[in-house]
């Protein structure tokens, strides 16, 4: 999920690639995704500016069919932009360590190839908002050495549209049963907001005017002279060559006439002999 809608902290994507057809430019303020280790300080020690407000979002999880229980806290700062909208920035994530009971539950869903489900409130200001946004993954997709997890939170102002939860790596099918060596979550979080569609600049009229009935707009690039006229040039060359050889033969024509008369003579000589033979 690394389309250029957001700026990753690892790789700055080149927008020029899409610039031609006016693909996408990030429009709204997009917060940088934060790679959060399990033990990250909360925002309490960050001196907040006056217009920014710290918010906490509780992450809850469920194992298979179990009920949801708190699993961690996202901390972010709410920034008001000039035109009244509010966006989240500086997202940090603190994952609670798994309790023994939860480890057992996790092992159970690993064995059953069941789902590990998380949920977030759909509004960060007054949780849970209208409803929770839910996302699930087959539990067997998560374990590597530790448990790799990857959140993509789709924001719309202060509302969370959806959260996509999964592993950072490919999940093979059939999914193999393997237990993590460390029961620690290795989390990666990306905040994503919408992008704006942008039209490429309007074309000049002459492009449209040049459009043929098939809709082929621009003229094809000019071909070289040879590429364009080879089919005329080759026969022309042949004719010319032919003419030259004939012209060269012209002076020898008397000689040719001689040879012709010689053969006639030979024929004439042969004819009587043939006649004699028949007789």
């Amino acid at each position: 999920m690394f389309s250029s809608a957001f700026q990753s902290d690892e790789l700055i994507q080149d927008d020029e690639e899409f610039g031609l057809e006016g693909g996408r430019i990030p429009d709204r303020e997009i917060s940088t995704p934060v790679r959060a280790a399990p033990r990250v300080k909360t925002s309490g020690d960050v001196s907040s500016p006056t217009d920014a407000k710290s918010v906490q979002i509780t992450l809850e999880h469920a194992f298979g069919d179990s009920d949801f229980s708190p699993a961690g806290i996202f901390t972010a700062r709410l920034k008001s932009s000039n035109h009244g909208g509010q966006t989240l920035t500086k997202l940090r994530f603190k994952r609670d360590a798994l309790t023994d009971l939860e480890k057992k539950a996790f092992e159970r869903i690993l064995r059953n190839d069941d789902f590990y489900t998380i949920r977030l409130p759909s509004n960060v200001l007054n949780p849970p908002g209208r409803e929770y946004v839910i996302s699930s993954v087959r539990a067997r997709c998560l374990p590597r050495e530790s448990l790799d997890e990857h959140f993509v939170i789709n924001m719309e102002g202060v509302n969370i549209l959806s959260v996509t939860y999964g592993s950072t790596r490919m999940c093979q099918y059939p999914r193999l049963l393997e237990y993590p060596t460390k029961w620690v979550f290795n989390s990666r979080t990306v905040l994503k907001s919408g992008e704006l569609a942008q039209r490429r600049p309007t074309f000049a009229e002459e492009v449209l005017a040049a459009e043929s009935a098939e809709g082929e707009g621009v003229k094809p690039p000019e071909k070289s002279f040879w590429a364009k006229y080879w089919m005329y040039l080759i026969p022309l060359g042949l004719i010319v060559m032919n003419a030259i050889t004939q012209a060269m033969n012209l002076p020898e024509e008397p000689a040719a006439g001689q040879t012709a008369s010689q053969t006639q003579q030979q024929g004439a000589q042969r004819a009587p002999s043939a006649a004699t033979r028949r007789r």
Partner: protein
Amino acid sequence: MIYTGKSTVYNKHPSRFWCRDLEAFRKFRTKLHFFSTSVSVFHLPRMFSWFPLDDLYQQYIGKVKHAIFHAQKAGRRRVVVATEENVIASLDLRRGELFWRHVLGENDSVDQIDIALGKYVITLSSGSILRTWNLPDGQMVWESFLQVSASSMSLFFVPASIEVGTDQQIFVSAGGCLHAVSSIDGEVIWKREFTDSLEIQKLFQTPYGDITAIGFSSSSQIDIYQLSAKNGDILVHKSASFPGGFSREASFVSGDVFVTLDATRYILVLVNLNGGEIRFHQTHISDLAEGYSGTAAILPQKFTGMFALELDSLIMLMKVESGRDLEIIEKIPHPASISDSLFLANGQQAFAMVKHEETNNILKESINLDSQRGSVQKVFLNNYVKTDKSHGFRALVVMEDHSLLLVQQGEIVWSREDGLASIIASTTSELPVEKGVSVAKVEHSIFEWIKGHLLKVKGTLMLANAEDLAAIQRMRLKSFEKTKMTRDHNGFRKLLVVLTRAGKVLALHTGDGRIVWSLLLSPLHSSDSCQHLIPVDIYQWQVPHHHAMDENPSVLVISRCGLHSDAPGVISIVDSYSGKVFSSSKLSHSVLQVMPLPLTDSTEQRLHIIIDDNKKAHLYPRTPESINIFRPELPNTYWYSVEAVKGAIKGYSFRGNCIDTDEDDYCFDTRELWSIIFPSDSEKITGATTRKYNEVRFIIVHIQNMLFVATVSPRAAGNIGSATPEEAYLVVYLIDAVTGRIIHRVTHLGAQGPIHAVVSENWVVYHYFNLRAHKYEMSVVEVNDQSRQDNKSIWKLLLGKHNLTSPVSAFSQPEVTVKSQSYFFTHSVKTMAVTSTAKGITSKQLLIGTIGDQVLALDKRYLDPRRTPDPSPSEREEGIIPLTDSLPIIPQSYVTHSLQVEGLRGIATMPAKLESTSLVFAYGVDLFFTRVAPSRTYDSLTEDFSYALLLITIVVLVASIFVTWALSEKKELEEKWR
């Protein structure tokens, strides 16, 4: 109506006529029509020979709700009808063919029609639009929009004394106002507003020329106004109130007596206006019908001195004597229909009554009806003078399946299958395989074949005379092959199985459009206490091709037993060849969603999951075998629901059997896996669409189930122009329907719906309105999978080192690249579809149902996000078209040619057996079926291809080889002898 022979000829216009303007074109068409009947036919073939002749075009009108007979002494007898599909049409009374037809807009329903002056049809539609049409040819004479503030019941009145040429007035009551409209140009002469929301029930003219309007002004008050016809001044106003209130339905027994019901519908109120006073007489319904305790309704039919009262189980005809006494004439058990009454010359009146049992009426005619037409819904009566000077009657009967019959002398003179004007779903079925062909038949067909080809050769070699040309053309038109009830080699012949709004399933042959069989669903469930059977959808149930070749294919018809979505469902399985019902049952649960699974059992029955409103899944067919097939697939089956009202999309997986219901093996619980919640204050779902479940794909991407969802700002949820560009925006989402991952999300500022979208393969194309540019736009989004990018090398593919076949879990989230582009588009769009071919290799065309009710085929290449203004040579090689600002509309690419599929609602595409060809079925009020070849027919010769000519050429060549060989031998020998 099936277009045959001659008519088909003038449907096939070469597209060069397209450039001309439409009016000239129409004239040309009509001219041509007349020509083709009288003047030589042999000019036509050459003109139209290069058009596909397999198109199927049928015109319908829909369920008739008003009919007016035109009783002219001389000339064609006709009936003018208005239908529930908002069609006004003039039909030939002798044959039932259309003289002319107009399809009004979708929201322009016809309230009343009338014939005035013997040659004008006057219609009042959407409560405020008055139009006059010329009766012979259907041209509109004038149109008048009445300024109406509130919508309410509207009616108009044409004075009987109106004469040709004089400026008379038509009185229209609409929106609580009375308008006088000039009959010459439709201008409003005067307008009278009434206080306190008067709902006028009746308008009539007194013998002195004044206009009387009678209506209810509140729930319990009756008002009578007498107005001057010249300027609308109120001359007399009387009102009286009735303590019980009124139900606001009235039937006029005579000019000054009418009956109505009180608000509770238990008491019949007779209102007598005679002598300038308003008097009420009350009668309890229970007094009229002994022991009856229910409510009653007054039928709106017009009688004189009588009225009809509808109770639960019967209709009572009652006569009013001396303005106050009621007398029951007849009790008719349900279901029955009654027409308006007709006045006959000697003061008698007649009305038609149709019922399904015996009657002892004076004039009784019994007709035999097809049982698949259901019960009679409406009757319109017309009289004529018989040869023996007595009165004869003919009746126009509207049936339950919306078909229209004309009954005369106890026979059905003609019938129209007008239920086909309201198709809600369609599917296709293959025809049976041809087997056991007799030798005689083969000989005959070979003879025919040779004859046909010889004729064609003649035509090609310009040897044919006019007669032969006509024969060739005739052969092409009603090709014997086309109408066969067997499968053809190319898969062009199919059965279209359609479901209409009336709850009727019909199978149409694609060759000539004839109805192979029909089945009305409601009689099947009359015993299940199913009052309103609402048809929902139709699916292919059994498509035998491998194991069960000897079984007939069948279709699954889903309907609902009640008006609400939580009403129990009804499923019927119907044989596609004969229309026989295999099984039909009322379900114990409701039907919210139907999912055909990619699994079939040993008899090739497709497994279906029906989701009910409790989010429980039910598996069909209910056999142990299907459970065994489905169980292993259970953990890998997912579904989603789009809750547009709540603004949420939710994804589910299946869990185990239902817990709370008692031991039902076929019921499964579902569990919510993911959800997307749209903030209700900023986004509102306007459209969601996904791939067709049976699409064959050539391009494989990781995301198998792409769901397209569009939301708009709540303020811009209305029509175009209801919001300013600043407050309107459109957000488009591409969602992986298994994991709920948002693949792509983009906002179009200043854009507004309505949104039409089509999803296919790895792309989605959507159409919307750009408020800033004041133009429609179309955008394309293509999703490409990065994880399979390294498969590009052809060597890897050849050596089998690709990873295309390895299974991948949907839960891994590979990187995808998304490319998109937008273009302007000229047309507003009614519906969109995409062609589908057997293997999905042929390039695709978008089929766009335009606002002009035509289907435009647009190459997908124009909607390729890789288009650039100046593509590189290698890109050109790939067929990338230079980028243009707007999408081209090529007149030749209308698949409907010059025809209009009036009231176009949907386009269905299905693959033919030939890879190059896709079949297209467009339906609305009209039906249109054709086949398209997006990349031309590269895999077959055209139908016109002359095999005989090819054979002759080969024979001639071979012969000439021998001749020249012999000649050269001879020459050589001579040479040797010399």
